């Protein structure tokens, strides 16, 4: 145990996800050896996150203003909406540079075991958006796990009655760079179900 502020810093760093006690100690001593200007920049960034980060009123993504950069961009296709679980999923899809529409962040997935039902997610906001805007396609990009699939099932049921709305799900199957013999039967089964003509 170290004394006073150093131990407090180690304890706080150790509470972060993925940071164990050894890593916390290493980061703390790195910060002790860092210039005051660098420390001040870190302090300012943390304070800005605590005070300044908001969620976009339209899509629920993290934003610096009332709407996020993507919702405010007139070049993005307003007819396409991609539904994701978390803001970090927006970043993952943006990295592909394939999608030119807009997003809707649910804020999680349906997980009754954790007490998360439809009312805890931004599903009503999505339905309101579809009724209000002229959206023609909703792409469901929830995680390909049990909770994500159940969320997709629920969304499909809620969205299928909107006239003229196409609801699609991200394809699921074999990863690039993998060997077929090592694929598990569930993934391989999904790959067969979702096969396409070439």
């Amino acid at each position: 145990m170290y004394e006073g502020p150093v131990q407090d810093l180690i304890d706080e760093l150790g509470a972060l996800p993925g940071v164990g006690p050894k890593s916390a100690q290493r980061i703390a001593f790195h910060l002790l050896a860092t210039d005051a200007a660098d420390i001040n920049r870190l302090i300012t960034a943390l304070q800005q996150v605590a005070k300044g980060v908001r969620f976009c009123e339209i899509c629920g993504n993290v934003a610096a203003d009332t709407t996020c950069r993507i919702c405010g961009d007139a070049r993005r296709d307003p007819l396409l909406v991609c539904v994701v679980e978390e803001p970090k999923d927006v970043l993952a899809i943006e990295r592909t540079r394939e999608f030119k529409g807009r997003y809707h962040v649910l804020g999680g997935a349906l997980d009754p075991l954790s007490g998360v039902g439809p009312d805890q997610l931004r599903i009503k906001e999505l339905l309101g958006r579809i009724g209000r805007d002229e959206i023609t396609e909703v792409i469901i990009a929830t995680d390909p796990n049990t909770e994500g699939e159940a969320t997709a099932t629920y969304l499909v049921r809620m969205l299928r009655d909107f006239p003229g709305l196409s609801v699609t799900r991200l394809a699921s199957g074999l990863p690039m760079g993998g060997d077929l013999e090592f694929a598990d039967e569930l993934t391989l089964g999904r790959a067969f179900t979702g096969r396409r003509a070439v």
Partner: protein
Amino acid sequence: MSLYRDTGVVLRVHKLGEADRIITLLTRRNGKIRAVAKGVRRTSSRFGARLEPFCHVDLQCHTGRTLDIVTQVQTVDAFAAPIVGDYGRYTSACAIIETAEKLVVEEDAPAMRLYLLLVGALRALAFSDREPGLVLDAFLLRAMAFAGWATAVRECARCGAEGPHAAFSVNAGGSVCSRCRPAGAVTPDAGTLALLGALLHGDWDVANAASEAARRESSGLVAALLQWHLERQLRSLPLVERRAPRARATSE
């Protein structure tokens, strides 16, 4: 480090570190176990898809100091896909696995009967046409019976007098006769008591023929009984989507 092999149903998964998960399973021989599955959150994982909730798997583990480590997994029954394809089944299945997890308090203590009941319930949800709400209530009643809290449906829960009795007390543990009837006991419909008995003993002809009102009332009583015995409310139970009977749903 010793190796062991067992079959089990995945009850719950927790994220661990960057790409690992802690998997809670109810197994045939070792009861409830918790084991670390390394790297399963990566898309390149060879068995990540097999360690999702509701999956019935054959697995091999290393015995660790605190948690065991999963080394190999094979699918026995792929319950997850058909269950998550229907939201009503999914919510019922969540309540089933949460109940199984809560009823087995001790880890590494065999719970063979509950394991077999769990596999049967998930199989019925995934592959049969039975109404998910009825499967859930049947599982809850029988799981409570295995835990020593069998619901008295015909005889009086207090004095054992043969019934049927009109009154039902959650605190007493089922039907009660007119002499033992405590304050707060309710008087359910005769069809509700018949449905509870059918679900407890697996009489599916009677259960499937039960009215919508009897199903609603019996599911309320079963939920109250479970909460009374567990002394806590399940998180998933209020989120269960109860549906109309299949025949009626198709005619709508």
